[in-house]
């Protein structure tokens, strides 16, 4: 944020993880790699084992079998009996409820991780306050966590995790504890922090839209396994299973927003074309639409009514979801519609068929990215 690197220039070391661990309800078995400077969003329902993955990386949980490597450094190799303790792994960890030390002031929380590398309390305080200032919290350096708001706590936790120049960032539901108003700002700030970070980042979330906004790629987890890993739009448009289709919920489209006519915002989609939204935003945005808001029409037909978005697309996949059908669509950017089985039959929807996807401007939510 603010044009300066928050993290020191690392050697560009990526993170590799392979782990098997018997849990109460299921067996966790996972393999993933995160390149340096990239953010992998681990998404999935509660209890899928997402946080356990973070804890394995940080060294707080030891898997039955597995290995964790950060660049050339091996943190864990169960077969070789290597298990580097958490304090020597240098992971910046933001816990779900932030886990700020209640007996320490904000600056002392941030300075806590500097004791190993910065000599002198005064110098540590200076460094901590500088970091707090970059998060707009300079005036709260002497405040105790219990007097801070949720958003302020989240930023102190982030500053604390970033202070000792971590080799990897682990974020466990960093936005879940925030109210919806604070969350929009916090999401923008976090996205900016992640853009600057040149270490691998693993972000856990149960919210697909959040994963799509913050992750360079998204991995969907269920019952301890990776179900699908790819770009957020890909996952939404080409879910490998009904579970992923259901979970992804909203379709996401990226583009650049500008003011349009009649108080609408127009988003020039990356790859061409534009769509309208009633939300206000400018600059790079992620537009999200729920698939059940998207209707499919035969090409060439137009209907009047409220402002509608229309995109010509090709049907890529047809996945039944109970009484409804998820239709994966290929256009300038992939998207998906959820329609009734009856309309699939009526329109003769099948892979390869060209249709028009249409939805209301009011159904298009914009998030700055």
């Amino acid at each position, binding site marked *: 944020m603010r044009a300066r690197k928050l993290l020191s220039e690392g050697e560009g070391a990526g993170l590799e993880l392979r782990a098997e661990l018997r849990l109460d309800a299921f067996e966790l078995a996972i393999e993933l790699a995160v390149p340096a400077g990239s953010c992998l969003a681990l998404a999935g329902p509660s209890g899928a084992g997402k946080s356990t993955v973070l804890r394995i990386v940080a060294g707080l949980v030891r898997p039955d079998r597995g290995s964790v490597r950060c660049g050339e450094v091996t943190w864990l190799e169960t077969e070789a009996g290597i298990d580097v303790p958490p304090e020597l*792994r240098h992971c910046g960890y933001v816990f779900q409820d932030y886990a700020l*030390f209640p*007996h320490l002031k904000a600056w002392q929380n941030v300075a806590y*991780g500097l*004791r190993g590398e910065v000599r002198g309390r005064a110098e540590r305080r200076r460094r901590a306050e500088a970091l707090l200032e970059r998060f707009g919290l300079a005036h709260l350096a002497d405040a*105790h966590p219990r007097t801070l708001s949720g958003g302020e706590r989240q930023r102190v936790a982030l500053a604390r995790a970033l202070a000792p120049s971590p080799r990897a960032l682990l974020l466990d539901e960093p936005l879940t504890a925030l109210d919806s108003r604070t969350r929009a700002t916090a999401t923008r700030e976090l996205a900016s922090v992640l853009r600057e970070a040149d270490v691998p980042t693993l972000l856990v979330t149960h919210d697909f839209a959040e994963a799509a906004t913050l992750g360079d790629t998204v991995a969907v987890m269920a019952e301890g396994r990776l179900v699908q890993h790819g770009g957020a739009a890909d996952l939404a448009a080409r879910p490998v299973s009904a579970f992923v289709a259901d979970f992804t919920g909203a379709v996401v489209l990226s583009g650049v927003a500008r003011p349009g006519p009649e108080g609408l915002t127009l988003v020039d989609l990356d790859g061409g074309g534009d769509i309208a939204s009633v939300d206000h935003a400018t600059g790079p945005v992620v537009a999200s639409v729920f698939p059940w808001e998207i209707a499919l029409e035969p090409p060439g037909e137009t209907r009047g009514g409220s402002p509608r978005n229309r995109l010509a697309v090709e049907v890529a996949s047809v996945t039944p979801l109970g009484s409804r059908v998820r239709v994966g669509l290929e256009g300038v950017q992939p998207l998906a519609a959820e329609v009734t089985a009856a309309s699939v039959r009526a329109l003769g929807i099948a892979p390869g068929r060209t249709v028009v996807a249409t939805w209301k401007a009011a159904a298009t939510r914009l998030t700055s990215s």
Partner: protein
Amino acid sequence: MRALRPFDALVTLALALALCFLTLPVVAIFAGTRPGELVASLGEPGVLDALSLSLKATLAALVVIVVVGAPAAYVLATRSFRGRSAVITLVELPLVLPPAVAGIALLAALGPQGLLGGWLEDAGVRLVFETAGVIVALVFVAAPFFLSQAQAAFSAVDHTWLEASRTLGASEARTFLSVMVPSALPGLLSGLALAWGRALGEFGATLIFAGSLSGVTQTTPLAIYELFATDLTAALALSAVLVAISGALLLSVKLVGGRVAPGLLAR
């Protein structure tokens, strides 16, 4: 204002009864002592010695209890291992031992003819009729109070704070000192107050295990008992002094604990 219900009246009466019964004897001690007698009683032979021995011996016992007890309670609070419940029960056993039984048990274990008696003698350690023996007796009866409080306090600390500390580069030892102890401080202090109170009032185990030698093993409760046989007024006066000291200790620990209760020990 709503009518006083029968149940409310009943519980209020119970509280009033408890309060009267528990404070009346203490009030009586002070009512039966004139300030002049209180000062004069301090001049009795052995009285100042007994007070100073009580303070020194209880402080020494507390140091041992905290230095060994805090890490032991930490293990019980944070690790799960086979036989953990059995260990907890065993370390709490002295809580239910009658003090005289505790004294005899200590003699049987550490006395000259005791289980470890020969070994202690070879090492040149004498406990019976020695101040060291008083400290041993105090540790034995008072430690379980601290252990159980400390274990509860450590268990109540949010474990993600400890995990956060580890990911921030702190070893488990530094995490214990910088996060665990400050976070559990109110509970630790209340355990300390309980142990201190128990140690200050210790009578039976000390008498049986260490004896009642004036200036060496005669703590204040033992001195009070000796005075009681000869001079009731002096015994009452010394009792008042002990109550005042114990009350002041308890109060100050509670005040300190209340101040740091939200966990505000800086640094």
